């Protein structure tokens, strides 16, 4: 074999090995978290291991549309994950446990299914006792009908209620407010001389004094990011995905737990007074924490902190009550 032929063969084989080997080697050494719309697999991998005290460095990319990345129960800003681009983020965990990471962008009809888990091992530096959610301690049946038999003619006004505030024969504390539905308190006020409208205004006032403008603002932001896609910006259950659910028709139907019948998903209308005035904050806490079993409503217990959930609930009631501006 001529020397030139030999050199050519060596060069070509080396070139092919380089073209195949180098990218494969570098690819294998660059672990990425891939974000895809839930219909195409969601997060991959959807289970990440971490250790308390050791920074967790993540590289995340999107394989389709713009997604967002955030870890529930953590004080962090969500980051955008752009198609074909790599977003890097470092997380520090000071408590062991199972954390949920989730998509924060309305990426598709099943956006809320885009969740993964970070298992953080290690010893807690300061163990915290587990607290039982209020709805559990009240033993509420989250799926029982809870419609209000009476609804006000208009939107009850907290400002009007404030004028009637003196001598209200009810507990104005947080526990009372959280464990009673607006209708229950309306009923509790039946032995007063207040008219029906005044009683509803008093309820609105009670709701207002159990929240703050900061909590409402936080609730509004949480609602806009996480709830409005289905429940609509105005709370009417007409978010952008509500239309998609309707268009998807049978393909978006689900079975309720234990039953075989397919049920059409339909986001709850928070502007419906019959439904909302019959629900206590504790009941809503349960629904948000647990999710709507068998419906499209996801469970948020692993994502929102308790404080965030109360803020969100306070904001949701603003679809029923006219608060002081």
């Amino acid at each position, binding site marked *: 074999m001529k020397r030139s032929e030999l050199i050519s063969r060596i*060069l070509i084989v080396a070139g092919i090995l380089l073209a195949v080997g180098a990218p494969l080697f570098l690819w294998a050494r660059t672990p990425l978290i891939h974000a895809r719309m839930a219909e195409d697999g969601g997060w991959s991998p959807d289970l990440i291991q971490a250790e308390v005290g050791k920074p967790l460095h993540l590289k995340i990319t*999107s394989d389709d549309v713009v997604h967002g990345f955030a870890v529930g129960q953590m004080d962090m800003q969500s980051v955008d994950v752009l198609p074909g*681009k790599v977003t890097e983020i470092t997380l520090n965990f000071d408590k062991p446990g199972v954390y949920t990471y989730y998509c924060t962008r309305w990426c598709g009809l099943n956006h809320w299914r885009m969740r993964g888990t970070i298992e953080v091992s290690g010893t807690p530096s300061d163990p915290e006792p587990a607290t039982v959610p209020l709805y559990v301690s009240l033993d509420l049946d989250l799926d029982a009908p809870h419609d209000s038999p009476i609804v006000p003619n208009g939107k009850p006004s907290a400002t009007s209620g404030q004028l009637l505030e003196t001598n209200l024969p009810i507990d104005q504390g947080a526990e009372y407010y959280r464990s009673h539905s607006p209708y229950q308190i309306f009923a509790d006020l039946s032995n007063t001389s207040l008219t029906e409208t005044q009683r509803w205004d008093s309820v609105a006032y009670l709701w207002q004094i159990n929240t703050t403008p900061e909590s409402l603002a936080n609730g509004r932001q949480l609602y806009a990011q996480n709830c409005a896609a289905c429940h609509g910006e105005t709370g009417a259950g007409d978010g952008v995905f509500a239309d998609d659910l309707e268009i998807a028709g049978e393909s978006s139907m689900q079975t309720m737990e234990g039953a075989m019948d397919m049920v059409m998903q339909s986001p709850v209308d928070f502007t419906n007074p019959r439904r909302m005035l019959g629900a206590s904050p504790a009941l809503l806490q349960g629904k948000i924490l647990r999710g709507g079993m068998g419906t499209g409503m996801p469970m948020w217990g692993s994502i929102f902190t308790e404080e965030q959930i109360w803020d969100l609930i306070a904001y949701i009631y603003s679809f029923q009550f006219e608060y002081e501006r």
Partner: protein
Amino acid sequence: MNRIELTRIPFIKNALKSRYPQLAVFIVMLIGYIFAILAGLIGTPVGSHNFSIVFVWIAWWAILILVAVPFFGRGWCAVCPIPLPGEWLQRGAILNPPDKRPKWLNLRFPKMFRNIWLQNISFLLLALFSSVLLTTPNITGIVLAAMLFAAIGLSTVFERRAFCRYLCPVGGFIGLYSQTAPIELRIKDKQICVKCEGKPCYNGSTNGYGCPWDVFPGGLTKNTYCGLCMECIRTCPHDNIAVNLRPFSADLAKPSTRMDEAFKAFIMLGSAIIYAGVLLGPWGAFKDAAYNVGSNAWLVYGVAFLAFIFVILPSLFTLGILNTKSALPLKQRFASLSTALIPLGLMFWVAFSLSFVLTNASYILAAFSDPLGLGWNLFGTANAAWQPMLTSILAPAQTLALVGGLIWSARTAQKAAGEVKVSPIPVIVYCFIVTSLMLWLLL
């Protein structure tokens, strides 16, 4: 017609005669090609950030259709890496002359397929799936790999470059449009070829291989089937092969009479029109149909695509030339007069390609630094923002290309009509109508 022999310039002649410059380019192209396959298979599925999509369907396509084909004809084929592994395997050598006994089956390609119908079909197959192919890296990776393996497979069964000559979906239209290019490989003196013993340019010699494209250079009258591989320059013992600079579309003065080539012109013309409407137009339903491969809408799109190319365009053309007075049969008039569609089709593709190339060229910078979408920044350009380029000149450039193509076609129609002794008017009117349609779609 005036021609300038480029091979009279010693630098050019030496560069073409030596195997090493071409081999160096081959190695780089092959590495790039294999990398493109790999990038398609393991890189980000986001097409706009994957090397396989950005470099093949934006960078390579831009170079091919805007530069290589119009100015160098089959210049791309001269450096294309696809046939190389198969050819090296077939020869059992890279630079050494082949053994006298073939290593593989070395069959002649079946006679019934020795035309470009298979290339027409392979192009249409890709065209029907193009919406997905052009945007999905792993599909592009699979298609690129399939072409490489098909070329290897055909090289072990058939003699010479059967893949390039009869199957390559790109080679078919490059060959058609290479007739318009201002460059050609031709013999200098026919008598020398007639007297030449052994015809080493076709059969090979110790100096090189017989024409891989199955062409006898002594009979070359048009660029269509000459792959510019330069083997004949190396094997000709009489220094009788020249690479010439010539006027544009010199080959079209003598129109083809082959139906496979005539339909190639319609396929290319029709595809450009459909792409302009479907990929660049404002009709979402068309786009959805083209993208949803396998759906009923896609089937309708496919049938409409094929009907437009094989029925509507040729039927209207036939209707136009039906009443031209000539002693020649209609089939021959059809084939010859369709030559006029070659420059028009090329300019349609130039105009169409300008749209998406200028719109998407900025992706090249980002993909250059991060070819697999793994977060690399090799050359500091990974975060280059998407930015359409030269938008102010796009519409004028497209108009110029289309109107220029129309004038070019009209001139070609005059020559072709002169050859078959009919009036060129129906063909010119036809060209005017389809150009108007293309102008409406693009502007």
